[in-house]
């Protein structure tokens, strides 16, 4: 079944662009162009996720979010904001949004974060002690990583990086998502800082193996999975 997304966004261009892009990904998108309609739709239909612009006519995005959460609706919300500063990110996250993206954003970034949210919403938050992908195994308790029979020795941060990739396997993760997820920093690392980390990890995981697990997704980021 196609996933249902509600987009609350007043800027027609951005809305068209998102609706079209998500449609191409096989999702169903409903679009509301103001906060009031958006809130009405959100409380009414069973959406899998909501993309909510922060600055809206009628009712501000933060107010919509507040009303939703107060009404006991826990549909994951991805906030969009044109304000473009980390402060808004923090404000959005404290107000109860699940993720935050500042405009302008790359569509790949939006898609990756949206998919991550959808997956998280589905799987719940049960505690796991083992993660795996193909013949790659990670034991979170003993902190050991093995590829087939080969034990892989990882630095603590490499371990966390791989853990993040494994928790989001078969999904595209962007560089900023990695910086946020692994190091808990929300800033633009500038040069290819994250690339170097990934390529080091990739050497340890994939070198000499027939099936590579860490893939570069052009124009987006990385994906850990069996398919190339």
């Amino acid at each position, binding site marked *: 079944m196609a996933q249902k997304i509600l987009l609350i966004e007043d800027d027609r261009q951005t809305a068209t662009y998102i609706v079209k892009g998500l449609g191409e990904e096989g999702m169903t998108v409903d679009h509301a162009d103001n906060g009031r309609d958006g809130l009405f739709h959100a409380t009414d239909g069973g959406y899998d996720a909501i993309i909510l612009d922060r600055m809206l006519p009628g009712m501000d995005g933060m107010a919509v979010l507040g009303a939703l959460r107060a009404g006991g609706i826990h549909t994951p919300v991805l906030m969009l904001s044109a304000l473009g500063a980390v402060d808004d990110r923090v404000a959005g996250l404290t107000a109860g949004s699940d993720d935050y993206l500042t405009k302008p954003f790359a569509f790949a970034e939006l898609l990756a974060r949206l998919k991550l949210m959808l997956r998280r919403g589905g799987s719940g938050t049960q505690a796991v002690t083992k993660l795996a992908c193909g013949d790659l195994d990670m034991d979170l308790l003993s902190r050991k990583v093995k590829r087939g029979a080969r034990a892989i020795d990882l630095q603590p941060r490499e371990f966390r990086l791989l853990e993040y990739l494994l928790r989001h396997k078969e999904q595209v993760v962007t560089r900023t998502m990695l910086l946020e997820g692994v190091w808990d920093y929300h800033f633009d690392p500038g*040069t290819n800082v994250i690339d170097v980390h990934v390529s080091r990890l990739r050497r340890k995981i994939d070198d000499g193996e027939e099936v590579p697990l860490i893939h570069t997704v052009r124009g987006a980021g990385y994906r850990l999975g069996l398919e190339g």
Partner: protein
Amino acid sequence: MRIPAFLRSSTTRFFALVFVLQLISSTALLLYVRHIIADELERTSRTLVTELHDDLVADYKQEGLPGLRTLISERLTGIRARDAAVLLDDPNGNQLAGNIADWPPPIPFDSGWQVATLYRMGRDKPEPMGLIASKLPDGTHLLVGHVIEGDLRVRRLTGEAMAAALLLAVPLALLGAIVATRVITGRVERIAETARRVGMGDLSLRVPHEAGMRDAFSDLAASINLMLGRIEALVGELRVVTDSLAHDLRSPLTRLSATIERAMRETDDEAALGALERVGFEAETLLGMLSTALQISRAEAGIGRDRFVDTDLGQMIEDLAEVYGPLAEERGFTLSAEGGGRAVVHRELVGQALANLVDNAMKYGRPDGTIRLSVHRADDLVTLAVDDDGPGIAEDRRAEALRRFGRLDPARSAGGAGLGLALAAAVARLHGGAITLGDNAPGLSVRLELPVAGD
């Protein structure tokens, strides 16, 4: 010979000027008073002499020579004649009457008021006196005088009093100079303090002054305030232009990115993909620049002070060293983090600022060099430093380096837009601190000095 600095200072000069002027005016006043007194004394003596002389001449006209001789004797024996001096000579120079023995040679037979020192008969020492001489119709000579020794004593006394008054005038002038200098320095200091704080970034500050007063200081304050207003308006306008430019550029850039992404999904042509990826990278760089420019504007405007959180800065630089470590290693740098300390800061912005500085150090540092991150917490100041051992920045170009889009060497276009240092500076100012570029001998030492409230 070099004049010592404190003597060349305008405060010292002003002080000296007030002091000297006060002394000159006191001296002038005292001299004038002395002159008036002397004048008055002389006028009194002169009147006395003239009156006596006129009396004698009038008597002579009425009663002739014998009457005059009698009158002179009378006058010289009276109580009022204590200071009188008279001499009546016949044409041959023989004394006919009076208490002076001989006609003094320097006095002409017919002269106006003059002063001479003469012996009176019966006195053992000469006395200074004012004199008038005249020739009577029968050829006799009359000399009338008045001893002015008392006058001279009064003069001497006023002289002494003046010296004493002058001695008193010196400390008074000194006090006056101190007070005047204090007042002036205080008012100038108030203006300077305002200017200093405006220079630190508080553009809304104005010099306090009373609008109604029409004195030089109020005029100066008003002019400076006018200038500050203009600066604030210009900076504001510039900010609006930069901000709206950044905002306006984001929509087309977003569309550009979207188009590139879509094109990448629709083609399998390796060459096209490569080209699109490069274009995409450039678009991303542009977006990054815009975001940074906006971040700077917001920080400069003081937005984000409500997001300050207690942060372990030692942990932060260790994290940064770790994030950048592999990249640094790949480029041949040694990256280290030293020191620790907690402070209430804007965690994200400080992180971004430090990341930019590390990025810069890797761009402009010496290959195979060392980059040192450090935190030092003093009582109320946290110093975050990023030091490299590259070529550094010449002292006269450091201000330029801190400007937005102020990249020093256009040839070194190693990515970035020269916003790194500008952002770091803006972040420092957001925290009420400052950024300094120093010499790491060799290399550049960038220090963010953030004041923190004492625990």
